């Protein structure tokens, strides 16, 4: 089964399509805004479908610390434990979970609260008797090489903090308080 020879006309058409495709890729790399016209939106959509809308600027121009969240669980029996959304099942799965926190910090306030509640919901499900959790999203503050030589060491910057409790537990304790009030 041999492939037919290509006519010059077909070759020209293919070159045109390839140039357009690579042009979209280059524009994606330069984060070009195609605008809100019908044609602009169509090209932007093509970029999304083909993956050519990527800025390709991985680890550029700087390497920022990836935020990370810990959940301090009040177990209800006086104990406090620390849990994370990452389960350690695989490096890839954990990396993907961790990817959520960078965009989480950029979310508008209207989204941030329910997203935090949703994340905490996973932790509370793992600790069914917990009274509540404190979610902390933090980033590593890594000193420069010069500061490291002078004795500085990495630390954590807390960028978001919230207390989340199961509504049932909150209602129970409110009831207990009410009953205890003379």
């Amino acid at each position: 089964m041999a492939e037919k020879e290509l006519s010059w006309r077909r070759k020209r058409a293919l070159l045109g399509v390839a140039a357009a495709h690579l042009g979209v890729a280059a524009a994606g790399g330069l984060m070009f805004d195609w605008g809100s016209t019908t044609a602009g939106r169509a090209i932007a959509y093509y970029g999304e479908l083909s993956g050519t809308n990527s800025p390709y600027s991985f680890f550029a121009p700087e390497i920022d610390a990836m935020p990370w969240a810990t959940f301090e669980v009040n177990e209800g029996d006086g104990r406090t434990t620390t849990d994370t959304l990452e389960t350690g099942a695989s490096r890839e799965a954990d990396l993907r979970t961790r990817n959520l926190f960078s965009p989480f910090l950029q979310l508008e306030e209207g989204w941030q609260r329910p997203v935090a509640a949703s994340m905490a919901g996973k932790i509370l499900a793992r600790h069914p008797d917990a009274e509540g959790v404190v979610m902390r999203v933090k980033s590593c503050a890594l000193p420069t090489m010069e500061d490291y030589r002078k004795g500085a060491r990495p630390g954590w910057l807390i960028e978001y903090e919230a207390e989340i409790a199961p509504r049932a537990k909150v209602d129970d304790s409110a009831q207990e308080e009410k009953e205890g009030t003379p």
Partner: protein
Amino acid sequence: VNLSSSAQRLLGRTRDAVDRFAFAPASAAPLAALRAGLAAVLLAQAASVAPAFLDFYSSRGILQDPVRGAFSDRGPLCLTWLVDAFSRIGAGETPVLAGVAIVYVLALLALLVGLGTRAAAAIAWLVHLMLMTTAHGTTYGLDQFALTLLFHLVWMPAGAAFSLDRRLGRAPADPSPMARFALRVLQLNLCIVYLISGISKAMGPQWWNGDAVWRSLMLPEFEQLDFSWLANHPWAPKAAGWAVLLVESGYPIFIWPRLTRRIWLAAAVALHLGIALFMGLHLFGAIMVVFNVAAFGAPATPAPGSAVARRWALRLLASLGAIVLAAELLAMVRAAAEKDNTTVPITDVTLVERPSPE
């Protein structure tokens, strides 16, 4: 008349040069390397993500249904739409998601061995896009490159070498002009990637002063080994940073001449192996090695004795496919059996934010 004939000669020579560059018949072996390599990386990714599959894609996952659109405008190409459509005939969410995962894995296996290559690429591309759209906040560079490469495989003659399609006589014989054309598009796309990546790195101070390499080795999310000793040898991360800038920014120039191609290819592969080993980004490193080797490392001109090599490669791919299929199914069954996909709904919790410390 002379000017016109000179212009015509020049035009003719340009046309011939373009024709040779873009359409001189070539083997589809590099495209087959891309096909099999990409499929292998994505199968490994699928196996790695399987234990957390429902956490990422289910409405009872980390992002519950009401907030799943928080990170992007998901549009029609997301799994929620599919789940809703199937719910009308009484199918639950988990079986639909499991079905999607099985279709994805089967499409990748078909790609690996080159069976129904274009259809397999189209299905894998569509499902990959849906997975990315559904859990947009969890995606990273690997997913973006995988999407681009799967899209390329839909129209490339990647089944024309080292494939069951070829063996069954369903794919055109190579060498072909389309194989050369597809390879050129792949090569130019990779050059664009490196040029932009190199320039954007050069625009910040971190890659010039060595801080970028220091941070990539020392930040806890990437740290694989203790590299704190580098603080006493700052010239080393600085030199490594400059080398990365040189390799990436110089790639579109030095990858083309025969004299420098091997050096640049080896440097790019070493860079990505370094990212895989020392930053723990194994699959991202792997996909970039596959992209490089397919674009500039695999021979596009068939060598003598390639028929025997091809037979062996085909057998190897078929065996690899069978092993990967067995491992994937085992991982999926194990994940499904072990998974306790529970969560506390957002409506059942109260949340009080604490002010962030300055």
